[in-house]
């Protein structure tokens, strides 16, 4: 009996060629979701008809915790938001309260902050490069990326004792000065870096398999990125040259010379290129900071008990994922009345259903990688 006849005789039994919508659970425990992201997929065979993210598995009530503790006690909580980029989280948090207090950060502290930020950006992009390579079957870049990341974590360890949850900034400045020889070791690392980025690029940029898996996947226009609030490499890969370090410079970014890499196609491949280029720019920024660093104070004039005026401010930094902002409402006491985090991962993840629609299941893995989410930040 042919398939056609069977369909006539038993219309209730689906044939091989009927559209069969199936609901598929993807995650929350799946290596390629980079954390505890659950996606409810509606698939027809391998084609994704709809992807509905289900988040909150890592919700720890960070914003509630901020309200129960004093201002400086909030800084370690920010480490646990985007846990592969703790320095930028610390930075955004401190920047918000400094704005509220009207405190000026000394120049040496500014330079060290920028250095920590850029090292963190490198390490975050290296994690992204390694893991999203693995997602698509390119295992080798992972070992190279994590070799360099290990060095960066060693720098952090030497600076503040921690490798991931850094807690490396304070309101008005920094907790510690640099250890002797730190700058020289970073300089050595930065000198090596461009050649090492060349290595990653040699493995991936012109790799035919890599291109087949990434070019034309998850295309999004610059207009739509703005409409959906996407920031960071996603926005820049779609041709919008916007980076908070340039648009609204904080610390001493305004005197540093660096380019904002952009691409026009807005697909997964372009987002890869943008991130790799950003790593090169981070190396450039680090080099300039090393040249400029000079002895000086590492903490501004901050009162012992931090009691900002009863006002509200929003301040944001360019984290490796995009615009990371904090909105703080003070009621004049030593605890924030309300502290809200604007997490780039949360907003960027919102676009995943749009990016994934119509692609194959295997491309979804590439797309989760390219959006570069950290669930600690999505769920807070």
């Amino acid at each position, binding site marked *: 009996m042919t398939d056609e006849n069977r369909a006539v005789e038993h219309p209730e039994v689906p044939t091989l060629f009927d559209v069969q919508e199936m609901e598929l659970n993807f995650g929350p425990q799946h290596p390629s979701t980079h954390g505890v992201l659950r996606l409810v997929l509606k698939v027809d065979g391998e084609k994704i008809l709809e992807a509905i993210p289900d988040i909150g598995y890592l919700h720890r009530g960070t914003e509630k915790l901020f309200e129960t503790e004093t201002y400086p006690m909030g800084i370690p909580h920010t480490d646990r938001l985007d846990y592969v980029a703790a320095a930028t989280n610390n930075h955004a948090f401190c920047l918000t309260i400094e704005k509220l207090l009207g405190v000026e950060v000394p120049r040496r502290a500014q330079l060290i902050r920028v250095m920590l930020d850029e090292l963190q950006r490198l390490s975050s992009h290296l994690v992204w490069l390694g893991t999203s390579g693995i997602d698509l079957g390119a295992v080798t870049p992972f070992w190279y990326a994590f070799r360099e990341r290990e060095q960066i974590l060693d720098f952090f360890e030497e600076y503040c004792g921690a490798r991931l949850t850094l807690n490396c900034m304070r309101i008005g400045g920094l907790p510690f000065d640099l250890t002797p020889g730190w700058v020289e070791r970073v300089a050595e690392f930065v000198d090596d870096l461009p050649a090492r980025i060349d290595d990653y690029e040699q493995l991936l940029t012109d790799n035919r398999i890599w291109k087949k898996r990434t070019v034309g996947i998850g295309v999004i226009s610059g207009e739509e990125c703005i409409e959906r609030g996407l920031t960071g490499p996603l926005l820049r890969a779609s041709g919008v040259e916007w980076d908070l370090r340039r648009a609204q410079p904080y610390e001493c970014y305004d005197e540093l010379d660096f380019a904002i890499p952009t691409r026009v196609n807005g697909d997964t491949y372009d987002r890869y290129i943008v991130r790799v280029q950003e790593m090169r720019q981070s190396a450039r920024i680090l080099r300039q900071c090393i040249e400029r660093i000079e002895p000086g104070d590492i903490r501004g004039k901050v009162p012992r008990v931090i009691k900002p005026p009863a006002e509200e401010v929003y301040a944001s930094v360019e984290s490796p994922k995009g615009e990371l902002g904090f909105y703080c409402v003070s009621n004049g006491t030593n605890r924030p009345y309300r502290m809200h985090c604007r997490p780039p991962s949360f907003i960027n993840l*919102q676009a995943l259903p749009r990016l994934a629609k119509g692609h194959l299941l295997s491309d979804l893995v590439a797309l989760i990688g390219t959006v570069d989410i950290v669930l600690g930040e999505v769920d807070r």
Partner: protein
Amino acid sequence: MAEEKAPPPPTAAPAAGGEAKPKEAAPPKLGATDASGHPWVRSLSSGVPDAVVSAKEFARQVTVVVKREKVAEVARYLKEKEDFRYCVDVTAVDWKKREPRFDVVYHFYSFSKNDRIRVKCGAADGEEVPSIASVYLAADWSEREIWDMFGIRFAGHPDLRRILTWEGFNGHPLRKDFPLEGIDTGAAIYPEEWPEGAGPGPNDPNRKVVS
């Protein structure tokens, strides 16, 4: 020294994402000033009549308080007429004893002005706020988060479900009266297991740990 109030004129807009804002030379003076004369506020009051309640400026950030019913109109006006195309963030604040109880806070960014504006509206417990998700797609999940965390409903939202907690969660965690731990937390989160006041306390040896 008097507070310097020199808001950037909206006409002299720098190229998108291009020119950097001059670095803040002096730290901002403490205390907010009235910003009802600010060009954006004036434009908003004339563009959406009867919407603006008050406006202030602190640390070079403009806050406009608008009427709750007009929020969607205000958002659309700011997006289309004042070029605030990027909705940075939507959140809420619980003032507990104040009337109306909540503030819903919006941050919009304009690429051509390279600046942000903060729009706020009050909402009493149980009052619906017009959703801006049809104006800015970016606000979709943020509004769901506010519903989840504060229990403020948004009228006209396409899919207003809880987002960080689960459907059936009892209470809204970021409200000021939501307990941090103890009997009431259990009762609040797992009402069927721990009825009000009957659940184990923090020092109870038989405390049930739900992981």
